[in-house]
């Protein structure tokens, strides 16, 4: 795959997707079973519930070189664990404020509710996001913030800022 530091037509965005086990991961399986072809740029990390999504995971993905992060959970009211997706939404809202303060474009981190039957939505969202991030270009987080080697502070500050408001 192309070098992420080379902006332009051959830039291939790298997207980490956190999908909840019960709805969105199942939907991605369904997209597969139905052979719905979509952009290969998103790699899925399975978590049991979007409520497990520690904002640090998003920061770690971006720091490790992801150009975008996609979070998928069950629709409001459908959470397998009753309300984990609401917690995810609250944390996500605060995380976005933090990311904006760090100079990271809003479109790079996206939260979507995708039900187990919505394989087509997985296809659409991943395609859309890949194109969106492609337009934005590589993130180059290290160059913006010079935080290489001191991830500890960024992740820690992020987590506390988010936790205080979210819980």
């Amino acid at each position, binding site marked *: 795959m192309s070098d992420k530091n080379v902006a332009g037509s051959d830039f291939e965005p790298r997207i980490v997707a956190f999908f909840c086990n019960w709805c969105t991961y199942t939907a991605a*399986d369904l997209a597969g079973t139905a052979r719905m072809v979509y952009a290969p740029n998103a790699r899925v990390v399975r978590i049991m519930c979007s409520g*497990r999504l520690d904002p640090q995971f998003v920061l770690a993905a971006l720091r490790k070189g992801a150009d975008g992060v996609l979070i998928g959970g069950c629709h409001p009211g*459908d959470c397998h664990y009753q309300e984990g997706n609401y917690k995810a939404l609250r944390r996500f809202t605060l995380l976005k404020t933090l990311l904006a303060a760090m100079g990271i474009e809003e479109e790079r981190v996206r939260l979507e509710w995708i039900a187990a039957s919505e394989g087509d939505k997985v296809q659409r969202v991943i395609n859309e996001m890949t194109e969106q991030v492609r337009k934005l270009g590589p993130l180059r987080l290290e160059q913006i913030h010079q935080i290489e080697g001191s991830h500890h502070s960024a992740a820690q500050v992020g987590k*506390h800022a988010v936790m205080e408001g979210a819980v």
Partner: protein
Amino acid sequence: MSSLDNKHNGSARVGVYICHCGINIAGKVHIQDVVDIAKKLPGVTVAKEYKFMCSDPGQEIIQEDIKKGLIDRVVVASCSPLMHEPTFRGAMAKADGNPFMFQMANIREHVSWVTKDKGLATDKSKALVAAAVARVMFHQPLTKTQVPVNPNVLIVGGGIAGIHAALTMANAGKKVYLVEREPTIGGHMAKFDKTFPTLDCSACILTPKMSAVRAHPNITLWTYSDVVGVDGFVGNFKIKVKLRPRYVIEEECVGCLECIEACIFKHGKFKDEFNVGLAKRKPIYVPFPQATPLVAVIDPETCAYFRAKCKKPCADVCEKKAIDFNQKEEIVEVDVGSIILATGFKTFDASRVARYGYGKYPNVYTSLEVERLVNAAGPTGGEVVLANGKKPKSVAIIHCVGSRDANSNKYCSKVCCMYSLKLAHLVKERTEADVYNFYIDMRTPGKGYEEFYERLLLEGINFIRGRVAEVTDWAMTPDEEEKLVIRAEDTLVGKVRRIPVDMVVLAVGMEAQPDADDVRRMFNISCSHEGWFLERHPKLAPVSTLTDGVFLAGACQGPKDIPDSVAQAGAAAAEALALIDIGHVELEPNTAFVRDEFCSGCRTCMNICPFSAIAIDTEKDTAVVNGALCKGCGTCVAACPSGALQQNLFTDEQIFHEIEGVMNYV
């Protein structure tokens, strides 16, 4: 806490196994490239590929490597973990490995089946394998906890599927709670006169089963009731059922129906739901003579006592003093270990297809209405008559109303061709009318079904292949005066036809119940786009759901005829019985745990746990997770400000390393 700094287990020995899945994966992924990269990953001691890892020889490859001491943890890159994770964990356990030292990389559903370019698919596979390896390095041996299974079962819906499942379970000696929201069980089948293709009498085969349900010592039947609460998990559900007041004491009523006779309304005045509006009922009624239980119901919406007071002749005439206007709604709670949902379907609302004139022309009927007309116990005593009471001389049956139509439902409702044939036969038999079937395709797969179609052809029923454009009363010739005219293209002849008839029957399709969405939320299962309850696997787990212990039977899962509903009900009962007979369930050990040394006792986790699984150890002032209550969502872990809470199988360090793995090898 930043677990990125932690060093992984230096002595870990990972075996990586890449599956071809025939050509499902190998056709899109350069398997050897993935094996080559896997060999170079830190901690990997064995990297192999095989045609079908899930097959016995495939599993044996893993087992041999474990036994030889080459590996102590395993990554299989194949299909979704939702498909084969249990298979490989089982294989490891059999070779005395710990089944949780395992991670799957989903390179089929998430890669080979959804990626166009082979090179990109290979890259993505490498990344997912690298992530799984990075993660499995931090896996710890875990054990499953066992919890006992309550042998009682809840069945929701008393149609033929619910009835059959209930009797199967009850005959096996299990306690069954059957909940039905209508005043009687029987469902749609109770409304039919005959069943296709054998033409045996629906009531004759159904009512004995209904009586058996009522009489069975192992079945508690709650009609006129709704499930209002579901709590707990497989083997241990807590159910709340609301018993609506019927103002007649069920235990006292002997079903003499004198009360109905005595009602101040001398004739029926209100819409009779059981007869789909073709007849009128009194405020006190039984839906039909074989209703089970045969207990009268008083509808408070229409009863004069509730509106303007009444001398209650119904109560006076009842020798058993069974009528009780003070009856109140009651909530009962029961514990069950498994649940079978058999909530059925509703028929398509024909007025949504305006061009067929339902609701506009009195002689346009739905198929369900005609089922009642041909039924000897129906509003006309089995006479097929028009709105004016006369027999029709010609009848048109329009297939696929609300099915196979981009404007309503794309799917085929599966039963309409066959019941249209049945109705054509019955209408012809009763009226000697000319019967025309307008169909798109004739779909008759099933035992004896095609033969039934052949028989109808020989009986002189007319079949016209073409979707009907409209039903109109606009006459163009004297023959068409006072008639309903069917306009349709006869696609076999290749011309547009106008056929005047006296009666039109709309073969309405099946739709999910209007409240299917509320029901699935209560039982924590999923629905397809169309609203049908989603099975765990369309082929291999058609009666299970993604929620363990909740099973599906009948048309709530998708359009089905009676034999299919009964077969599925039997399958659902067998699944529930299997669960009960094992006697325990093994819970996934993905529960949360607290590392005391990091816990400050802030109680953040306690407040956000939806299952009240976290308490505070007052002596140490640290959080404690109750493993039996924890369902393993991990919400508390994400919330813990000090990283003291962790989730088994989803620890911070496992996930951080998975992220790192996924990014490093793209």
